[in-house]
């Protein structure tokens, strides 16, 4: 106790200093990402970039829960896919404008997250993962058995992209791109803010030592549920946007392999790093594009990456970089 007190003052100033330089670095990175977003549609195929951005947001949302809440959800496809269905359905059958359709999908994902989250946090650790997976499988069967809503095996196809606020047509890929880029950037900034807020600090404390956080008077379960709902909502935002971009919502989006994919993206990019999931999503989506002709081999390659990451590369791409420059990213 005394030891801690004596080193507190100098330690605090060192922390402040590194915090400052880290904050500067992060600010630079945000500007770099924004610049990349502006350049990207001119150098790459916009639909590809939009796909990366949707999955990056999905992985960011997932990482918020696993990396900062310490909760491994193996059923995030439920929120992603359900939001995708709701957004596609409302845009196609109710004629909602794209921003309202995306909001509707996101809201439903948030509600579903609140419902499933309150069940899953009743158990810890490995059980938590199994419960989220089982609940997501229930959503999958629901989607399979309600073809009037989901279109069954066909999914909801030919979703109209519509006009943003009823004014700007999004039929052109470039026009839609700016909306997707704005949603992604907004999501990233929000997640960054959450992680670095007092709320985020408490979540990290609970992740690292739950009994201690409880003994300090924090209601761990409320924090866990809140971070779960936030994560599900943002995953829903990604899924709803994806439905508008590809004009499609299908069973793939709610299948457990989608839950596995988002885990893989986060793992490859760097678990518990702010920017890692973006790198991971880029790598995995690019890989799927190049390997698309290989059919079932894609699954094998993904499995191999899983195994290699767990055995040899647990920090992920961004985690390794962060270690090299000795700053959290």
């Amino acid at each position, binding site marked *: 106790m005394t030891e801690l007190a004596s080193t507190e003052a100098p330690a605090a100033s060192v922390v402040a200093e590194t915090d400052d330089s880290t904050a500067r670095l992060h600010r630079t990175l945000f500007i770099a990402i924004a610049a990349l977003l502006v350049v990207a549609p001119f150098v790459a195929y916009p639909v590809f970039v939009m796909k990366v951005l949707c999955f990056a947001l999905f992985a960011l949302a997932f990482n918020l829960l696993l990396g900062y809440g310490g909760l491994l959800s193996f059923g995030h496809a439920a929120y992603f896919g359900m939001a995708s269905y709701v957004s596609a359905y409302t845009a196609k059958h109710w004629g909602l404008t794209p921003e309202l359709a995306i909001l509707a999908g996101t809201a439903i994902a948030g509600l579903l997250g609140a419902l499933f989250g309150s*069940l899953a946090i009743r*158990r810890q650790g490995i059980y938590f993962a199994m*419960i989220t997976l*089982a609940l997501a*499988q229930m959503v999958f069967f629901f989607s399979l058995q309600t073809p009037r809503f989901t279109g069954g095996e066909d999914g909801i196809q030919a979703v109209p992209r519509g006009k943003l606020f009823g004014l700007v047509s999004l039929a052109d890929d470039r026009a839609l791109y700016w909306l997707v880029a704005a949603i992604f950037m907004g999501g990233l900034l929000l997640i960054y803010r959450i992680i670095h807020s007092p709320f985020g600090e408490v979540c990290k404390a609970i992740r690292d030592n739950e009994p201690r956080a409880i003994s300090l008077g924090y209601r761990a379960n409320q924090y866990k549920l809140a971070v779960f709902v936030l994560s599900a909502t943002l995953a829903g935002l990604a899924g709803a946007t994806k439905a508008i971009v590809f004009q499609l919502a299908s069973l793939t989006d709610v299948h457990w392999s989608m839950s596995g994919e988002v885990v893989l993206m986060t793992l490859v990019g760097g678990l518990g790093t702010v920017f890692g999931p973006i790198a991971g999503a880029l790598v995995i989506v690019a890989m799927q594009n190049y390997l698309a002709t290989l*059919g079932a081999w894609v*699954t094998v390659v993904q*499995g191999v990456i*899983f195994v290699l990451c*767990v055995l040899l590369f647990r920090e992920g791409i961004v985690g390794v970089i962060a270690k090299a420059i000795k700053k959290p990213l």
Partner: protein
Amino acid sequence: MFELLGIPPQALFGQVLLGLINGSFYAILSLGLAVIFGLLNIINFTHGAQYMMGAFVAWMCLNYLGINYWAALVLSPLVVGATGIVIERFLLKRIAHLDHLYGLLLTFGLALIIQGLFRNQYGSSGLPYQIPPQLTGGQNLGFMFLPNYRGWVVIASLVICLATWFVIEKTKLGAYLRAATENPTLTQAFGINVPLLVTLTYGFGVALAALAGVLAAPIYSVNPNMGADLIIVVFAVVVIGGMGSIMGAIVTGFSLGLIEGLTKVFYPEAAATVIFIIMVLVLLVKPAGLFGRPA
């Protein structure tokens, strides 16, 4: 012919039987998961793939080597169990000191690899496996027709489950196993080779899954995806039962299969989800699971 609640007894008992068969697979698989989890602290996501491998090895034995069902019933678990031992020695051992989520991710990756490889080789349409000639036909029980093979699966599964229970709860080897589950360091200090026990336990759990696969082969077609969805249901079974008790896993497995079968008769729309719904109810009422110890 009499009717029960408007359902012809043939259909009712047929589904009850099918439910019992599914239940016996749930029981064997969740038993294996529980044993592995107890000692390795890993949720073996590869379990479904290993169940599938069991069925495939039996199919290969028959079609490539001409080895019949009865020999495959012994051979297939041995072969698949051996691959499990290799996985444990070369992969799982390396991450034993890490957070258990890495075990889940590693075994998930392995499941993807195994299922992908089999899908590449054999497609996903499924391969037929004949019922062994000794068990074709069936018995007319008056109220229903009992196919011999289905009866055999239920009885064999019960025997397997009870034998596993007996070994773990009543023998010296089982005592070592339980001791190592409780406190591996202390058990090792008493001169028991815990790493060997861990390897053998994983091999045994995997062999159980493979055995279930061989039993399933003649009922369901042999398909690379046969274990992928099943394992998720088994996870729900494990959440419902809790992994603390061997007998609990057996009872939960069989009864959930039975409930699922009955749901297929009375409300088929919910048949695929009834186990998940029960899981939700159990989580609300008794979060630790029916046979679990509160954490």
